[in-house]
């Protein structure tokens, strides 16, 4: 288990209380789980993702990750429509552990309300919440 100062928390993504992250590119956001989340969950063995085209509200459950310890729900940091899912995770769920902000990304959504993105935590706020 990592100490808080060992966590990889990039500056160019935003975070949620539920340990998801979102990165913006135009009106599309890429979503995954933070280094803290993957570290706490342990080795991930399965990722369940929604279908492209489905829509979610902010805070709604959009899938789940299963580790050797437990199954955890995934919650949408932002409302919107799923435009792409990371199909590679089906065969290589370990990418969520090895590259949570890279190959371990989960879904891309077309954001419905940009204000929701602005309301997410930046690195320092997220770090403060972890130290809480």
């Amino acid at each position, binding site marked *: *288990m990592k100490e808080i100062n060992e966590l990889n928390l990039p500056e160019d993504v935003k975070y949620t209380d539920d340990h998801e992250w979102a990165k913006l590119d135009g009106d599309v956001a890429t979503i995954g789980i933070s280094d803290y989340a993957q570290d706490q969950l342990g080795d991930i*063995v399965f990722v369940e993702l929604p279908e492209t085209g489905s829509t979610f509200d902010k805070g709604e459950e959009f899938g789940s990750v299963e580790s050797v310890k437990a199954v955890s729900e995934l919650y949408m940091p932002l409302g919107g429509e799923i435009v792409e899912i990371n199909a590679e995770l089906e065969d290589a769920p370990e990418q969520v552990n090895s590259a949570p902000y890279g190959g371990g990304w989960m879904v891309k959504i077309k954001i419905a309300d940009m204000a929701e993105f602005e309301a997410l935590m930046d690195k320092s706020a997220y770090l403060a919440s972890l130290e809480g």
Partner: protein
Amino acid sequence: MSHTSSETTWMPTGTTGLIFNEPLLWEQGAEGRCGMSVPESDVLMSPLDSELVGDGPDWPNLSELDVVRHFTRLSQWNFGVDSNMYPLGSCTMKYNPKINERQAALPGFAGSHPLLPESLSQGALKLLYDLERYLAEVTGLPAISLQPAAGSHGELTGMLIFAAYHKAQGKPRHKVLIPDTAHGTNPASAALCGFKSIPLASGEDGILTPEMVDELMDEDTAGIMITNPNTLGLFENNIKEVAEVIHAKGGLIYGDGANMNAVMGIVNMADVGVDVLHLNLHKTFSTPHGGGGPGAGPVCVTEALRPFLPVPRVVKEGDTYRWDEDYPQSVGKVHAFYGNFGVLVRAYSYVLSMGPFLKKASQLAVLNANYIKESLKEVFHLPFDRVCMHECVFTDKYQEQHKVATLDMAKRLMDYGFHPPTVYFPLVVHGAIMIEPTESENKETLDRFIAAMRAIAEEAREHPDLLHQAPRNPKLGRLDETLAARKPCLCG
């Protein structure tokens, strides 16, 4: 005999011994070897339709001794409650008295067939009828179906009854409240009946408060599923007030009876407001448990919910027993015939052999858990430091600084000869270690377990690598659980 303290007499129970490697049955034997003889056919030979003819089954070619050694060797790799303490939290791995097996093996029970006419099944029907009465006495709920074959199956039946009840009121409801200290299968059972499960966080003391329940309860909520004692091993002290809040808005209370071993003969479930309760006979009533064997999860309900119970039902008229299916509001059949009969015979044997001592069993189960809790709370972090019921929950918080996690300690316990406790459950406790000793263990065994746990806490400080590499004594060391989950090998 002199009395010495457990400290001086304590020796680790786990040790290494001669264990045999054993290949799969199909990887041994030789063509033509056979351990059985088929009796001469006493029916006339008749040609088979060629479409029905094919290759025979691929039986291994083995002698009787090959087979006996195979399964004896496999059994030596195994660990069960007949070998040593099995403190798997929330599973109630109590000892299964052998008298239960003896009764279930009686030819009249073992050889009975569910399609025999009622007139030839009076003994079996009486057993089912009487067992229902005994379980009604233990729970305080008068109407029972023995059909469900597992705890989760009992939950499903209970949720079907919730749905049928609200439908009969003319107002189907769509949500069910489920606390975060409930059993993990509860949301799935609710979802299968079309309910949306609404999670409910437990309060600071690890139990529900009526205020929190009131906030979420509404006219579209069918009721609440409460595990009591809950999965933190704590009694829901506010259960009555919670039930009043739910009932006031027309809802029902589902009691997950998986933890009934703490309260047999102590809590009357009807008095505290429970409307539907399932029992796990394979936990509380000492029928065999685990390994995928058959279970039994009877459902007990209030008089008001009796019309909705599954069919068929056993009824008694004068001195005879018969099946009755004429209950138009019933949720229907939930299992072939009337559940797992052999399991029910074992539970019946247990209830009759224990009699009034069922209450004592619960009292000792609670005492044992509290003894462990008090004996270990110095060395393991106890998130809720209050009197527990039949199980107690620690965490790895004190060991984290040595980079030792719950999993490492659970694995190390195997080297000391104990089955690991439940780990990482309940989910509300980070790094949970959930210990349920049951009433079966005597003080010497509890002391050996406590000594082993203390030794492990010491090792976590002094030799953390011992724990990272554990277990060493079992036939196989640390297994790659991740690889097993990601790339399961399903052969045999």
